[in-house]
């Protein structure tokens, strides 16, 4: 079912030339070359926003490139859909789960492949045997009749990988495969990767954990700002060089103001917070009028941590104090009554009602906080929204335009207005500039820093380190669900934070 070409280690199996891709006005890839040789494990490194995901999506044909060419065994190809790449022997495992939870492990592994058939229908025994065989390669000894929904996340991830290698694959792209795996599961995965490599399969490996990259990869390519910075055998690299290449020499483009709020008095204290499988033993305090950042790479638990502060995870453990008083933040309305506001990370799912107007979205939280007045559009709330549109330069046709018509950056500013309108003392944000273009990004920073001027305390979680360095007075760095350290801005740079976040040192 795949291109049965002889594995020639001197000719790249998959090669990309001058790939370009832009979203709106933002160039995600600015002409990137990439070569993948048979039988190698190729580490792809880069910060969030460096173009890694875009490159992967183009290679697996989830999106189409704007310019450039792709070659398989030096023959030009243009894949139109993931189905075509798959039949060319290129499989991808992303962080998004694509298993069907209700179906058994065996069926999930064999999903999409032609099932063994007999005269009377599906050969269930054959299907199970084949699945068991593939899973054994990954050291998974799970009963293949178990529904996937009953597996722990790490095992489910391995089933996902098993499915990807169940066909006759030439290329396997693994995007952050280890973020939900335990140490022993990582070992199983790595030994399976080793076996695939021996069979001439080329593997693209992405991980934020530097140690893993150096343990398993043969070659490394580093991306930064949509460009390939360097590429070469692992022997040419040290962890320090990889980080240096990821960051580049020039410092981040945005400079926050040099005003710096010194931590004096705590407005909120968090002691020994934990949430099953997400984070544990997290303690820190948020100072009056400061901007406190929570840094972490994908899967570090920083998003879930700030969500817990707004009561989205009612089963968190540990103690939270606001103004020295113990509080139970078990649901959003209780958090709102403590004058906490939350700008969620996924504005389309958690933040906005897309079919409703700019105005109605922007006043939704402040009016529900005030309780049931007769008039659902109090004039002061409407005035506030008008002021926000002007001050935050929100581009919208009118107050009544459905937010779905707005660009990502403007949607995000509507979401910010909605929560600033509740006049919170503590503003919590998760990934405040996700999917937002560069111009809107700096405007959002300006808005947030202006709120700090007014004495608001801000807790912001982000996986973009430059963003935190622009905004924050202090930064809590998380690694695999634990606090790796707390640094103040004058002692912080990207290098220090990335090393802590990667668990390097």
């Amino acid at each position, binding site marked *: 079912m795949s291109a049965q070409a002889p594995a020639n280690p001197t000719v790249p199996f998959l090669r990309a030339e001058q790939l370009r891709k832009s979203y709106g006005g933002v160039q995600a890839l600015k002409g990137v070359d990439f070569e993948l040789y048979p039988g190698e494990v190729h580490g792809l490194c880069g910060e969030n926003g460096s173009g890694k995901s875009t490159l992967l999506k183009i290679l697996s044909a989830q999106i189409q490139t704007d310019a450039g060419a792709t070659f398989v065994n030096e023959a030009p190809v243009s894949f139109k859909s993931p189905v075509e790449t798959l039949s060319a022997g290129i499989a991808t495992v992303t962080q998004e789960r694509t298993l069907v939870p209700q179906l058994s492990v065996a069926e999930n592994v064999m999903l999409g492949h032609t099932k063994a058939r007999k005269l009377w229908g599906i050969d269930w025994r054959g299907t199970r045997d084949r699945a068991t065989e593939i899973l054994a390669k990954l050291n998974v000894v799970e009963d293949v009749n178990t529904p996937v929904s009953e597996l722990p996340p790490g095992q489910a991830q391995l089933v996902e990988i098993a499915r990807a290698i169940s066909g006759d694959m030439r290329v396997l792209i693994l995007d952050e495969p280890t973020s939900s795996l335990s140490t022993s599961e990582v070992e199983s995965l790595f030994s399976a990767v080793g076996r695939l490599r021996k069979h001439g399969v080329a593997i693209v490996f992405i991980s934020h954990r530097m140690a893993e990259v150096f343990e398993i990869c043969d070659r490394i390519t580093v991306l930064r700002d949509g460009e390939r910075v360097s590429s070469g055998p692992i022997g040419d690299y040290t962890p320090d060089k990889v980080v240096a290449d990821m960051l580049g020499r020039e410092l981040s483009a945005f400079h926050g103001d040099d005003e710096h709020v010194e931590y004096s008095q705590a407005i909120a204290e968090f002691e020994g917070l934990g949430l099953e499988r997400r984070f544990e033993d997290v303690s820190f305090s948020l100072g009056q009028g400061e901007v406190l950042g929570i840094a972490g790479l994908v899967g570090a638990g920083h998003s879930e941590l700030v969500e817990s502060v707004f009561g989205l995870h009612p089963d968190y453990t540990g103690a939270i104090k606001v103004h020295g008083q113990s509080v139970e933040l078990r649901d*959003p309305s209780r958090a709102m009554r403590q004058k906490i506001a939350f700008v969620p990370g996924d504005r389309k799912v958690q*933040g906005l*009602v897309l*079919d409703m107007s700019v105005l*109605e979205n922007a006043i939704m939280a402040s009016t*529900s906080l005030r309780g*049931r007045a*007769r008039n659902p559009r109090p004039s002061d709330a409407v005035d506030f929204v008008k002021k926000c549109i002007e001050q935050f330069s929100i581009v919208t046709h009118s107050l009544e335009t459905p937010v779905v*018509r707005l660009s990502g950056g403007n949607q995000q500013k509507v979401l910010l207005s909605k929560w600033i309108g509740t006049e919170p003392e503590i503003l919590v944000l998760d990934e405040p500039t996700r999917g937002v273009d560069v111009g809107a990004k700096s405007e959002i920073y300006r808005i947030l820093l202006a709120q700090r001027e007014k004495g608001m305390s801000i807790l912001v979680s982000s996986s973009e380190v430059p963003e935190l360095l622009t905004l924050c007075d202090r930064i809590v760095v998380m690694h695999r669900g634990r606090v790796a350290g707390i640094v103040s801005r004058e002692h912080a740079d990207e290098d220090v934070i990335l090393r802590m976040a990667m668990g390097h040192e």
Partner: protein
Amino acid sequence: MRALIRQRFFVVLVVLVLMIIFFSITQEKFLSGPNISAILTSSSILWIASMGLTFVMLSGGFDLSIGSMLALTGIGMGWFLNEAGLPVALAIIATIALGAILGGLVNGILIGKLGLSFLVVTLGSLILFRGLTNFWSQSKTTQVISPFLDALAYGSTFGVPNPVWVMLATYLVMLYVQKYTFFGRDIYAVGGNMEAARLSGIRTSRTLIAVYAISGGLAALAAVMQDARIGAASPQVGENLVFSAAAAVLLGGTAFSGGVGGVSGTVVGVLFLGVLQNGLSVAGVESYWQQIITGLILIGAITLDYAQRKGIRFRRPAAIS
């Protein structure tokens, strides 16, 4: 005018107008006063019940039980008047309260508070309410006679039939709630994005309970009209009500997925069904043709709406600056 064109029910409205023009040319009696009254009064039960269903569908749910609720509260109306001996005004209030309480307690709490599937819950209450109806009435139709009810169904005020006044009042109150109250806007938020609504501090379970209570209450008001029209409380009524009501609400542009639409569209949908039925009956077309035509138009309208929205999606990137 532009605002009207942008409404999701615009296409159905245009077809409705064309249909009225066609019938009034082909049949001389179609636009006569008595016939217009007949169209409206014969739609009154569907009209009132569909208003409640509109709110339920705006909230992203559905209420399969409205037909059984109509039958059950209709029997209740007869019991309050005949057995309990309540004055007619009190009997009407008690009937509506019965519908609202059953709708809120059974459907509302299970769906809003416990988060059960609205299809499963209202399917269960559909059967439950029908069973209770037969138990309460012993499957017998009883007479419900009251001069007030008679006037409600067949009298006129200022030359307009009384049922039309009830329909108009129901519509205006619902429109006001939908447009000018917090609760109304909360329904849209809950139906459009439940998670975002909850994170905004909206009490989503309360909103849902209220929505199902309103649906039950309006089914009960429809039951009062039903009893008044036929002068009796019958356990067999309302068996097809939910299908017609769903057709009217969907024709009126309220989305099955919630958060989009409104009661004005439902008015268009109900009138559409009423005019179609009346026009074809007056022309002497067999009733199965009415069903075939209604079904085709419903499917056609929804396909058209889908195509239209797809078109908007394609154009959307250009609108982003």
